[in-house]
């Protein structure tokens, strides 16, 4: 249990530093990626590409093995339904409007200024609103 918590702490820390190093904490850079008809900035594609490399290796290593401190790997969900598409569309709209997705918004919380707190508070409220409405009727 303690080892799992240490792994989570290390993973969260490396993840957060990666978001700062790649400048994904900067919403202007994220919005510039989503703006192919403006001054397009392809940096986000390099971030995704870079993140793929360790993860491709990691998924390959999961076959016929168990996690170091756990009992199994999560099964892959396959259903492509209305919730996936409408949820993805809502997320995409919010992501474009602010230039923040959940990880960078939290990673930038300590230095990003007051607007970040507003965004994160609204994001938590959005999670709560889902829980009380659609999420209350069926598991996510």
């Amino acid at each position, binding site marked *: 249990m303690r080892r799992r918590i240490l792994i989570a702490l*290390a993973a969260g820390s*490396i993840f957060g530093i990666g978001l*700062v190093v790649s400048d994904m904490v900067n919403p202007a850079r994220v919005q510039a990626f989503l703006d192919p008809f*403006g001054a397009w900035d392809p940096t986000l594609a*390099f971030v995704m590409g870079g993140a793929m490399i360790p993860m491709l290796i990691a*998924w390959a290593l999961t076959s016929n093995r168990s996690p170091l401190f756990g*009992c199994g*790997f999560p099964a892959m969900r396959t259903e492509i339904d209305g919730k996936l598409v409408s949820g993805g569309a809502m997320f995409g709209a919010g992501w474009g409007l602010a230039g923040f997705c959940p990880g960078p918004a939290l990673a930038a919380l300590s230095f990003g200024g007051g607007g970040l707190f507003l965004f994160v508070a609204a*994001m938590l409220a959005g999670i709560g609103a889902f829980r009380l409405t659609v999420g209350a009727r069926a598991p996510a």
Partner: protein
Amino acid sequence: MNLNIADWMMGLGGGLLIGLASALYLLGNGRIARISGLLGGALGQGPNRFLGERFAFFVGLIGAPFVWISLTHVPAITVATSPAILILAGLLVGFGTQMGSGCTSGHGVCGLSRFSPRSAAAVAVFMAVGVLTVTLGRHVIGGL
């Protein structure tokens, strides 16, 4: 277009760190580093036995950048959006990631690297709507 190769290389390096962190969490704990899902879980959804490690993940995610910028420099970030837009965006991101079961980390990094068709569909949708939103907001309606 931003042709600054140094920016691209910092993106690649930072991306490698993000992938490394996700790989560590997967191979160590057998869990997917999906920020929106972990956040939903830390707020009380899902099995309680994972609450401690979810909390620890967020301590690292929020705390490590603060230590990092103290040792290096504070990145010059631009939050250009108005408070009303930030609130609307936050609500959409919070609600949408729970309904769609994932964001850029879960569906993007972890799902695509697993060749999940479900995650590929989600990424296609949120990328397309993200581009549409910025394009409308900057070049058609204006104000963004």
